[in-house]
Each structure stands twice: as structure tokens, then as C-alpha cells.
């Protein structure tokens, strides 16, 4: 692997290609976030803008899965909550 090879295929390179794009992030605690990716690092810490968080939950005695959403103009996500990151166009 050479340094000039910008198409090298480390897993994190997939996230690099999503910079300035809409991404879908699945998080711990039945949460998902969609927003525009502005920064990330090796821990999968991220900064998203115009993000919409969806939280899935069930109420007692009901198998129905409900969801609620929250919006944030600019949010930092700590990497230890991140399960997966994908181009939002794939979802």
C-alpha cells in the first residue's frame, strides 16, 4: 500500500468518501441519525449538520414499535455509540 494510493481500501476510507454527503448512522440504544457529515476520526466520532435523530421504542404491553424524531442543526456524536455508517442514499 503506497501513500499516494488514495483509493486504498481501509474501512474508514468508506467514511471519508461520505464527507460533505448525507449519511445514515445507526447508534446504540435503538437510535438512528441522518445528516450531512462534516468530520470524523478513527474512533468514529462525528460531526453532522441538519441532523434528524429517530428513536425507536415500544410501550408497555404493546409489541408495536413506535418512533419519535429530534432535529439538531449541528451535532457531535461520540464514536462509542456508533454501530454503522452508510451513505444515506443506500437506505
Amino acid at each position, binding site marked *: *500500500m*503506497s*501513500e499516494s494510493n488514495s483509493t*486504498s481500501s*481501509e474501512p*474508514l*476510507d468508506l467514511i*471519508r468518501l461520505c*464527507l*460533505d454527503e448525507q449519511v445514515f448512522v445507526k447508534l446504540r*440504544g435503538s437510535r438512528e441519525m441522518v445528516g450531512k457529515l*462534516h*468530520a*470524523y*476520526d*478513527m474512533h468514529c*466520532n462525528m*460531526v453532522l*449538520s441538519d441532523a434528524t435523530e429517530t428513536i425507536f421504542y415500544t410501550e408497555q404491553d404493546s409489541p408495536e414499535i413506535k418512533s419519535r424524531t429530534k432535529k*439538531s*442543526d*449541528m*451535532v*457531535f*456524536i*461520540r464514536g*462509542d*455509540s456508533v454501530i454503522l455508517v452508510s451513505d444515506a442514499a443506500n437506505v
Partner: protein
Amino acid sequence: MLFFSFFKTLVDQEITVELKNDVEIKGTLKSIDQYLNLKLDNISANTTKYPHLIAVRNLFIRGSNIRYIHINPSLVDTNLLQDASRREAMASAGDKIGGK
């Protein structure tokens, strides 16, 4: 180190921290370290739900308890962040080649 530097630029600004136990705390960022531990001043939290924090002005948060940090978008230069991310990605690829 990217986010450490990023948060250093936000010192003395107001941020809202959401913890993994769902507590949300708004306050002025006073300091930050490499683990993203925070020191917040003049905090306000949802005290009807969490009355523990009603008398607290100033606190330390261990970075590992943080889920999100909400930031005022006017304080963030997104182009600068993206460039810094690409530079950091390059640098860490370089480290691996160098055997670090």
C-alpha cells in the same frame, strides 16, 4: 486529536451535552482534554426530571458518558472541519505505512 482541537475552538461558548443516561445539560464550555472530558459552567439541566442537578453550577463530565454534543452551527466552519478530517485521515494512513 481533531475533535480535541475542534472543541478547544468552542471554549467559552454555550453547548448542550446529551449523556448516555438521557440527561441533557446546557452550559458554557470551560475546558476540554484529549479524552473529551468536559468542564461546564453556569449549567442548566431538565431539573423537573433530574432534580439532582438543581443546585449545581459548574461540573465535570467524563467523556465516556457523552452521547451527543449539540453545537450552535454559526460557531462551526464546516469546510475547515472537512479539510481537517481529510488531513487527519491521510496522516493516520501515513503512520501505518511508517510502522507506527
